[in-house]
């Protein structure tokens, strides 16, 4: 049985730098690659900041050595993350050190989008921008300027645009993301849940997660709270056509038919009312409209819902009872992006109504009242009155009256520019963002840009949208600048600072400075009276009895959580609901006044024909929207997306795992990518991670990797809000 050892074989096995012991290869140990030599590193210090890698804004401590940011750590005092930093946050260093960054002002030389640029000075850039802005203003009026932002740094751009006199400032957060959810809660309870949702996750005992993929569409503080609850035994029912990582942590996964969440929720409401499972005391004291609601949902039986959404009637009844049994420590958890169907408002309303029936408002394990930390804004002249209505119709009676006029409808703004209706929009100023990849209509974006007299884009990195700019202004990254204050409303109120960890690496300027200097050229200096962003925030802090110097020593100042104010109903105190009636309105009065109460009723959605699939997309824990795919560290974790397809569907098309496939919608829009054949998705649905398929060659890491979901998602709209119904695309898949 014995065999002699073959030395050549041993050498082969001992490859990859492994140690050889007595001529035999080890399996684990290796020689240290670099000789041990004491490194003479300079001392380090830390500065405080808040993250800009996603929109949750975790508190950070940036370690700085020799004038360079070298490590990002979490600030344990910050309620948004309690010291934790995710992969995206850690990779924030590469947002600054990205070799593809925009490094100096650029003037377009060839056709728009052709990629031919000339370096110019900041002064020349400002002069050209000011000349173009003033000329168009004189010809078309101030409303001819549209400002589209997407990030923390957009605040000064809003101020600049409002000082210019235009009402047309917008950000995708409403029309392309959370709008329907926030409007629904506002209509029902007068209390939108905000960007950092006011949910008492840690103490919740039962979660009904409506596609809220909390472990992958990841925000540290939120995920921590949810994980704590699950670790303590909270039950999770996860509803999604796809088996996500969140589904894997749930007690139960319900693979609902896409676009039918509203049917499921309406049946839950019906059962809850029919079986009197709701919080009778809360409903009697705090709500209006139960009887009308009962009449409206009478037709939505669990059996009807089963036909529509594919979830068994007996399960719908059971879940309604389980929710009620755990209330008020129970939550129907809305998806964060609720822009999927042509009646997302109805879905949002149903979620808000269910939470109301469960009596979770101001109860532990439910929805809490946040504390704020008021820091007054500086004293500025009032903005000039804008005579023209918003071009996107947001907040405009007769157009989209329910849409948020602060953030607007970015999708509608692009259409308004493309069509030049209701009036000419000839100037575009963008601050971050990427219209191609965060909207759903490449054609509309191209047509819109084609209509412009002048397009100026400010950003830290190249992308598909800003490659069409006439002048491209390079911004300092969030590690290289001050920004305006972060004021938060969690259980604790807080104010946090973003300090520069290093001087700008390139010829870049911070957003506030760019806007102040442009304002000076445009005769709008009165709205930017401070010498710097640091002076601005110092003045604001002094009005609140603080100072920048004080805040810089700890990064954050907090007002302690106050259980009596966070959860007044736990302490015998009344809840406040700032609706027109002062009550929680189960059939919102504003909706009725606008004749839009049909949003409460079910609106059937599209269904695939033979060979078609519902098209879905979503987030992954390593990337934020379409803005991090070029980050070298994050691209290491996930460099391209794949098309999730069920094996039964794949085998019908002869598709095997890893094959390249073409995905085409009914409008002949097409994308190609590799197939991921998996049982973790319904057979009638395909999925891809959002944000890939970049086609700007300046993005050398991400260019050409994966497919753009934005080029396949639906362009339909929610009929009540004007938000995008992205989930209504039906696609076919073909092996290449």
């Amino acid at each position: 049985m014995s065999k002699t050892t073959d030395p050549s074989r041993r050498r082969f096995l001992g490859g990859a730098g492994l140690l050889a012991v007595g001529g035999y290869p080890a399996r684990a140990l290796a020689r240290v690659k670099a000789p041990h030599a004491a490194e003479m590193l300079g001392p380090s210090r830390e500065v405080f900041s808040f993250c800009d890698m996603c929109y949750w804004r975790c508190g950070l401590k940036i370690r700085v050595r020799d004038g360079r940011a070298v490590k990002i750590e979490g600030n344990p005092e910050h309620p948004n993350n309690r010291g934790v930093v995710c992969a995206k946050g850690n990779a924030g260093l590469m947002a600054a050190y990205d070799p593809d960054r925009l490094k100096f002002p650029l003037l377009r030389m060839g056709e728009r989008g052709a990629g031919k640029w000339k370096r110019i000075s900041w002064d020349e850039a400002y002069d050209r921008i000011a000349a173009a802005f003033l000329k168009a203003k004189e010809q078309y009026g101030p409303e001819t300027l549209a400002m589209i932002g997407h990030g923390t740094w957009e605040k000064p751009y809003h101020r600049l645009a409002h000082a210019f006199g235009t009402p047309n400032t917008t950000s995708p957060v409403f029309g392309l993301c959370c709008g329907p959810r926030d409007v629904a809660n506002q209509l029902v309870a007068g209390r939108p849940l905000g960007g950092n949702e006011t949910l008492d996750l840690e103490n919740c005992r039962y979660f009904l997660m409506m596609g809220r993929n909390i472990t992958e569409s990841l925000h540290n503080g939120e995920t921590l709270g949810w994980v704590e609850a699950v670790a303590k035994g909270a039950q999770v029912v996860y509803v999604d056509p796809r088996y996500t990582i969140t589904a894997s942590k749930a007690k139960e996964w319900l693979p609902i038919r896409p676009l039918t969440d509203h049917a499921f929720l309406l049946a839950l409401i019906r059962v809850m009312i029919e079986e009197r499972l709701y919080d009778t005391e809360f409903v009697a004291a705090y709500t209006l409209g139960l009887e009308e609601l009962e009449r409206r949902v009478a037709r939505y039986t669990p059996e009807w819902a089963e036909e529509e959404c594919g979830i068994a009637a007996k399960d719908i009844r059971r879940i309604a009872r389980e929710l009620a049994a755990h209330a008020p420590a129970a939550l129907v958890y809305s998806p964060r992006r609720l822009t999927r169907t042509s009646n997302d408002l109805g879905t949002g309303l149903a979620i808000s109504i269910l939470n109301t029936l469960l009596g979770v408002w101001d109860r532990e394990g439910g929805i809490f009242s946040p504390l704020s930390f008021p820091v007054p804004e500086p004293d500025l002249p009032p903005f000039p009155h804008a005579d023209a209505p918003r071009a996107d119709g947001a907040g405009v009676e007769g157009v989209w009256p329910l849409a948020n006029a602060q953030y607007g409808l970015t999708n509608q703004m692009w259409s308004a520019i493309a069509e030049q209706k209701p009036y000419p929009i000839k100037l575009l100023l963008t601050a971050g963002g990427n219209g191609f990849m965060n909207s759903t209509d490449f054609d509309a974006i191209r047509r819109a840009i084609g209509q412009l007299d002048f397009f100026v884009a400010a950003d830290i990195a190249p992308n598909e949208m800003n490659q069409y700019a006439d002048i491209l202004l390079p911004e300092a990254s969030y590690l290289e600048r001050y920004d305006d204050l972060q004021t938060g409303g969690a259980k604790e109120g807080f104010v946090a600072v973003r300090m520069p960890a290093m001087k700008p690496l390139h010829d870049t300027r911070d957003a506030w400075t760019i806007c102040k200097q442009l304002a000076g050229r445009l005769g709008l200096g009165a709205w930017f009276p401070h010498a710097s962003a640091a002076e601005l925030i110092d003045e604001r802090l002094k009005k609140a009895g603080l100072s920048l110097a004080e805040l810089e020593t700890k990064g954050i100042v907090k007002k302690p959580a106050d259980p009596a104010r966070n959860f007044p109903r736990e302490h015998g105190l009344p809840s406040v609901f700032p609706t027109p009636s002062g009550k929680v309105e189960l059939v919102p009065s504003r909706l009725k006044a606008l004749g839009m109460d049909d949003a409460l009723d079910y609106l059937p959605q599209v269904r695939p024909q033979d060979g078609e699939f519902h098209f879905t997309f979503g987030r992954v824990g390593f990337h934020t929207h379409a803005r991090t795919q070029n980050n070298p560290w994050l691209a290491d974790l996930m460099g391209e997306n794949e098309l999730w397809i069920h094996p039964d569907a794949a085998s019908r098309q002869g598709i095997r795992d890893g094959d390249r496939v073409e995905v085409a919608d009914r409008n002949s829009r097409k994308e190609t990518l590799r197939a991921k054949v998996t049982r973790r998705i319904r057979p009638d649905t395909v999925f891809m991670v959002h944000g890939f398929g970049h086609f700007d060659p300046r993005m050398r890491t991400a260019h050409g990797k994966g497919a753009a979901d934005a080029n396949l998602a639906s362009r339909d709209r929610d009929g009540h809000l004007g938000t995008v119904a992205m989930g209504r695309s039906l696609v076919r898949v073909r092996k290449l």
Partner: protein
Amino acid sequence: MAEHDIRMKLHLLCAGLFAEPEAEHLEHVLRPLAAELGQTDGPWQEGVRALPFPEGGRETAQLGLEYNRLFVLAKGHVPVQPYGGYWLDGKSTLYGPSLRTVERIMAAEGLEPAQASGLAPDHVVCELELMAHLASQGGKKAPLEKTLLFNHLARWTPDFCRAVMENTREEFYCAAAKLLEETVARDEARLAAHMGRTAGDADEEEQA
């Protein structure tokens, strides 16, 4: 065969038995090592000869499943933790203070776990390979051997081996655990007799 050579080979064999089963390594390194030791007279002979090496790919694959079940994958907990720190620093601790002892010895020798191995320094494979490496130097590294043995291997591998024997469904791992238990016990007796010192002394030495 010289005593230090036998000790080196025994530790290397034991390390390999608890590494992730790989057909090439089993066939071309471990089996010949075992054969060589099995032909050498000594108290280890019986244990080495009793090792039931897998025959063919299917048996190796089966062993791989058992390896994953025992040491890697877990639903709730790993049946047998292969990290010394778990046994030495309290059973909820990985990367605990005891890890530093092993790290220091490795650093003194210019060694570290290969990045591709994905293992921490106090993994049973790393510690045994480190011991093999020290033994291969013919007694020149006796103080380090003693520190590693008395502060680490002798303190946790008996519990580890018992856990393997209680949890495994494969005769291979049962025999491997028995061989490791006997090897460490013999080493402990030998080093204590030769150097006349105890584990407590090793602690002091390390602290100094």
